[in-house]
């Protein structure tokens, strides 16, 4: 089915989100929709899926005019989508979530057998490891993402919109997804693919449309004729810049040391040394136990063995409150909507939360002016775009939200900062800004532990890299910031660990 978007405009009270936008998604093609955060992609997707109505312009399916008043209409017309927000019912099973739109059954009754059978078929394409009967609430973030994709596939949609489907899944799972996409393409489905991962886009798409500030910059150009450089300059309006983060700051004293740490999450024998003015990278695939380690350090998980030293003194950190106040450790969560931000509160509050106690007067009151003055430098430094500091965070774009969640730790000026996946779902321009900022934080003397699954990011930023696999550290090397060397070192560490494990496994099997 061919979906045409003709001269669509959409204005919100404060901004023109889409300005006379036209494009066409053809059957049997993967069409990448690119653009920075705030370029209007999500608004466009919401119009196509019936969540928003356009102010002007129209939608056509195979040349026929269509109007969507609700998501139901769009679904009925054969348009399916994987949205960015989690759209799962937590206490329902995986299978039921996948088939929520049209559960199999007769006369109003549900046939669970059929649900699980069908869901299993869909999941087998992506990740056979997920139990279709498991409650969604018990799944990991990556698994939920897979379930969302399976859910979209279940629709047998003729137009399939995928908004950042690979943001939180492993490379392995992403590859499975691309195979499925290839098959759907062969079946004549029109696929719209939204992603910030340029390499991914260049590999799997046939055509690309670029949006910038609500306007179309390039419409449906063949990917073969599009270079990476041109794509970036269309998106950001100028040439791509690589973050200037050349290390070289001298390493200071040891700021944080873990000795033979074991945790309730299942880590064991973790040794780690983090110096002042250093960025220590913690690389690993999704599920390697990196975030869990960071959480355990700040007291959000239980340490069951070993010792933590902050500075040169042993520390027992029981909760994040103690981590911040007593040991000056901050943690920028990967789950920014769930843990990093209080979405319904203002920008000011979200940033100043870590310093309220410090800036309060003797009566524990915070004059608004003082709070504002304390926050403004961070807002400016990070170039957070908003028209008022009192704006609630849920009205910000993802990139700006991420900046806010980082800004509060900049404001706190902690000695040690654990940063978890800082650029997931963030556009290129913002990503570069964030990279430079992280480098600056380290240059200013803070000890930074950077967790990332983005190898390029890791190699750009880290001074040293620890490789984690299966809740253990399996390798460590000094990063010379040359991509080939770094990736080689990382992959060999992981492979060696895999082999070891397999070996152990086999031995266990023989015994």
């Amino acid at each position: 089915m061919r979906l045409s978007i003709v001269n669509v405009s959409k204005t919100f009270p404060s901004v023109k989100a889409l300005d006379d936008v036209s494009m066409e998604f053809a059957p049997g093609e993967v069409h990448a929709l690119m653009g920075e955060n705030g370029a209007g992609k999500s608004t466009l997707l919401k119009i196509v899926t019936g969540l928003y109505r356009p102010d002007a312009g129209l939608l056509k399916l195979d040349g026929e005019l269509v109007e969507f008043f609700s998501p139901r209409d769009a679904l009925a017309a054969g348009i399916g989508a994987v949205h960015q927000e989690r759209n799962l019912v937590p206490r329902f099973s995986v299978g039921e979530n996948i088939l929520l739109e049209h559960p199999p059954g007769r006369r109003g009754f549900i046939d669970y057998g059929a649900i699980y059978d069908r869901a299993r078929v869909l999941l087998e394409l992506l990740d056979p490891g997920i139990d279709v009967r498991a409650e969604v609430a018990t799944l990991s973030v990556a698994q939920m993402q897979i379930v969302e994709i399976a859910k979209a596939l279940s629709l047998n949609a003729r137009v399939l919109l995928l908004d950042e489907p690979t943001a939180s899944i492993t490379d392995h799972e992403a590859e499975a997804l691309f195979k499925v996409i290839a098959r759907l393409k062969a079946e004549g489905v029109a696929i719209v693919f939204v992603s910030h991962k340029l390499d991914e886009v260049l590999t799997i798409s046939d055509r690309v449309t670029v949006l910038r500030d609500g306007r179309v910059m390039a419409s449906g150009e063949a990917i073969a004729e599009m270079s990476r450089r041109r794509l970036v300059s269309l998106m950001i309006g100028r040439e791509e810049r690589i973050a200037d983060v050349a290390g070289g700051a001298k390493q200071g004293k040891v700021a944080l040391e873990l000795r033979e740490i074991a945790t309730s999450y299942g880590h064991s024998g973790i040794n780690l040394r983090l110096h002042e003015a250093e960025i220590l990278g913690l690389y690993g695939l999704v599920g390697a136990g990196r975030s869990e380690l960071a959480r355990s350090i700040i007291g959000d998980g239980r340490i069951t063995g070993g010792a933590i030293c902050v500075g040169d003194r042993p520390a027992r950190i029981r909760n994040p409150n103690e981590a911040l106040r007593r040991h000056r450790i901050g943690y920028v969560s990967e789950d920014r909507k769930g843990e990093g931000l209080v979405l319904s509160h203002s920008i000011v509050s979200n940033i100043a939360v870590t310093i309220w106690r410090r800036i309060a007067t003797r009566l524990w009151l915070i004059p608004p002016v003082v709070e504002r003055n304390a926050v403004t430098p961070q807002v400016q430094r990070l170039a957070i775009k908003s028209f008022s500091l009192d704006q609630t965070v849920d009205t910000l774009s993802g990139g700006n939200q991420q900046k806010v969640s980082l800004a509060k730790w900049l404001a706190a000026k902690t000695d040690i900062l654990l940063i978890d996946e800082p650029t997931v779902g963030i556009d290129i321009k913002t990503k570069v800004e964030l990279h430079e900022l992280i480098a600056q934080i380290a240059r200013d003397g803070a000890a930074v532990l950077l967790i990332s699954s983005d190898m390029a990011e890791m190699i750009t930023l880290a001074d040293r890299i620890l490789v984690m696999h299966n809740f253990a550290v399996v390798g460590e090397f000094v990063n010379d910031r040359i991509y080939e060397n770094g990736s080689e070192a990382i992959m060999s560490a992981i492979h060696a660990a895999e082999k070891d494990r397999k070996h152990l496994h086999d031995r266990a099997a023989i015994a």
Partner: protein
Amino acid sequence: MIGFRKFASQEWAGLAAIFVLGSALAAFLSPSFLTEYNIYVMLRSASVELLVAFSQMIVLAIGQMNLAVGALGGLVAVLFGAMLQLLGLPLPLAILIALLIGIVGGFINGLLTTRTGINGFIITLATGSAFTGINLGLTESRPFHGIPVEFVALGDSRWSFVPALLWPPLIVAPLLAIFLYRTKSGRKLLAVGGNMRAAELSGISANAMIIVAHAISGGLAGLAAVLAVSQLGAAQPEIGSTWLLISFAGPIIGGTALAGGYVSILGAMLAVLVIALIENMLVLMKVDPYWVRFALGGLVLVTVGVNRWRAHQMGRN
């Protein structure tokens, strides 16, 4: 052992264990506890409360609350009485109309909630006051006594220790279970409670489900009221005036999520039974009236504590 672990992992397992242990304790302390008649008395008292708990539970399922459960029950009870005494309607017809009134009352709650977009909490608080107002205006707080003898006798009849009044909740419970766990509409309703946005994106009409939940809630409150009339032998205007707390305590102690999207029917039933057991024990043990409330609070806390401890133990393993 595997069977036991499976049992213990159930949310209602703690309550079931407490009920059994509590019963054993009561039997040990008071010889009259395990008599056929006493068990009948206890179950008879629980009958209305079970329906009241279900009535609240179905609204909790969509993540809302119904503060008008008792007020609507009271209204249905007196209208039911009026139909029998003043209009002389035949009993089956009167029951049918009473249930319809309950459903309509719930429907109004649901309609107002969805049409205005105002939370059900406020709407049902206001309509509850209105329902009570109609009740008082019609009765001037005097009960209707003209209830057919055979209907009152039905409320007193039993088969061994099973009161006739227990049948309606016993029939409603599996129907609710089938509805919520097996039918498409039921699943949609729970999906709306679990994640309204996701449900809407999946083409489910949240508004329709909210109205359905409120209508069912009203119907169940109406049924509870009809049972209460049979139990009391008179259509008392005070019926429902103390339903509010039990309506929440049953489902919530039983494991239903306050936030919506998950209910435990068996849990709610067991919670109501445990509370009925506690109340029965307090009378059987001849507890000084001044100690009754204290003991009730303490025992509820113990119940919840034990259940929590079980969940904790399961979580650790």
